[in-house]
């Protein structure tokens, strides 16, 4: 998969700044995500990746700079607004409700109601429609091998639960899916399944921002790698252009790069 950097970025920031008192968490950061790519964001602890991600997912309001979605300036004051515009986030800590079943979890907060008076007056849920859609999405992503859709999520393994979270983002994300350390809580084999799932989602046309500390994972799935250092972008590389140790060197400041992201 090669990224066409001549296209309009689907999600972009220009000169983004966020200060907490005297600490500058985001220091005039630029960022571009292009259609159809997996962009990994790596950086040392405290480099400001989470602040950047929070700004992109609406959990944090930047002080300066702008965020462009499809070339249009946007202003999120809550994650709800970002979500309404098609930006979904998958969190590392398995943010699913264990006692609810798979279908309930997929549609949590976005339930479908029955048509007609049953839905409008009696607020009745259309359980059948939700189960059917859940089944379709899980099958599409190759997750239906193990699950009975009305099974409680607590009976699933960690990887399967993360699968539910990814399916949810793929079901509702129309523009961008942000994955914050999606494999951090998982074992080796489980991580592998989730990585394949991430590629699957990308191949279905949704661009993905992947935040990860795991270099082999990043180098395996990413199309481009955004290296964050001291609150801003230090470089954008690709798994083909640089090695893992070079990436780490850039991340820690041992290696200075002066590259133009457009050339990467």
């Amino acid at each position, binding site marked *: 998969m090669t990224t066409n950097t001549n296209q309009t970025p689907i999600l972009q920031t220009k000169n983004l700044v966020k200060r907490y008192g005297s600490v500058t968490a985001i220091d005039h950061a630029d960022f571009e995500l292009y259609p159809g790519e997996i962009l990994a964001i790596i950086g040392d602890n405290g480099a400001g990746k989470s602040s950047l991600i929070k700004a992109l997912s609406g959990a944090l309001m930047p002080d300066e700079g702008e965020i462009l979605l499809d070339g249009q300036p946007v202003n999120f004051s809550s994650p709800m607004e970002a979500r309404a515009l098609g930006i979904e*986030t998958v969190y590392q800590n398995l943010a699913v*409700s264990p006692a*609810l079943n798979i279908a309930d979890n997929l549609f*949590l907060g976005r339930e479908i109601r029955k048509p007609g008076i049953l839905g409008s007056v009696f607020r009745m849920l259309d359980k059948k429609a939700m189960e059917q859609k859940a089944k379709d999405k899980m099958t599409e992503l190759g997750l239906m091998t193990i699950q009975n859709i009305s099974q409680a999520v607590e009976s699933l393994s960690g990887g399967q639960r993360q699968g539910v979270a990814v399916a949810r983002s793929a079901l509702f994300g129309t523009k961008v899916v942000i994955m914050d350390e999606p494999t951090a809580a998982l074992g080796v084999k489980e991580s592998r399944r989730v990585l394949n799932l991430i590629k699957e989602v990308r191949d279905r046309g949704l661009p993905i921002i992947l935040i990860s500390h795991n270099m082999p994972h990043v180098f395996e799935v990413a199309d481009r790698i955004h290296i964050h250092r001291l609150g801003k972008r230090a470089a954008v590389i690709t*798994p083909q252009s640089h090695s893992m140790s070079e990436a780490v060197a850039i991340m820690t400041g041992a290696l200075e790069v002066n590259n133009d992201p457009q050339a990467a």
Partner: protein
Amino acid sequence: MSSTEQKNSTAVLDHDKVADQAQVYVASFEHKETPVQRFKKFLHHYPVAAPSIVLLLAIFCFSLIVGSRFLSAFNLSLVLQQVTIIGMVGIAQTLIILTAGIDLSVGAIMVLASVVMGRMAIDYGLDPWLALCVGIAVGAVAGFINGSLITRLKLPPFIATLGTWNVFFALNLWYSNSETIRAQDISNTAPLLQWLGNTINVFGAQLTYGSLLMLAMFVVIWYALNWTAWGRHVYATGDDPAAAKLAGIRTDRILLSVYILAGIVCALGAWVLIGRIGSISPQAGYTTNLDSITAVVIGGCSLFGGRGSIFGTLIGALVVGIFRNGLALAGVDVLWQEFTVGILIIVAVGVDQWIRKGTA
């Protein structure tokens, strides 16, 4: 760059190879379920099953020991009458416990609402329907106060409602001057308040309107919990509030709505209470809070939130009622009724822990 490229690709390949060779089941055990495990799974999947089994066993045993005096339609309908108040307040308590909260003030809200209904109708001569509405509004406001303390001030539900329990009870004594409103005065000026005490006779069973209202409320709340988005959000909020928030649920709003609804249900319980005892006593219902928690817990609802069924509470209340009634008919001293209820609570929570341990 070609050498680094190669290095990378081999690294990834190695990683892949190792991962693919890894056993799918990191730790796999003989997967033969013993009957006990299967039973446990069944109980876990159907939270109402355990209390239902206890209820049926209790009915069976008491009908053997006490005989037809116990198993008559009349006696069983008496039990239903006796558990109506607890069942009603238990609905409110279930909603709150599903959100991993607890409400110690439910009984005080109920009595305060009944006193307000009575004074409005009798002392101020308000239209009984209006007096009823004012009483229900008082219940809603009381629930709103509880909910606000918990969502705005972030007080633990136990502490917040321990405080409001005393506050509401004191307000109730002040507003009623600690005086009981006599049944005769109510039936003369506002018979509507006692209307739920009327009975209909079905094959020898004496069903009060109050019991029927309680059963109807169980159905309404069951529908709300299982067939509306609000109900799913109540479960999600109690189960894992952080995950619910990340899914976009405004958990504070859900909690507030649950406490307000609980207050309204308690106020409806006040109407049932007036029908049941005829008069309005500010001293009534002092232990209703604990009795309602008992019914919810025996009904299989988890105090950790997110698990349980509303009908479990009805069955829990019936189990307590059946035990008290059966033991009384068998001529057992009242103190042993208390003893038995205590044992039931401990067993119910013990079973809940056992079920959750193995299958979650």
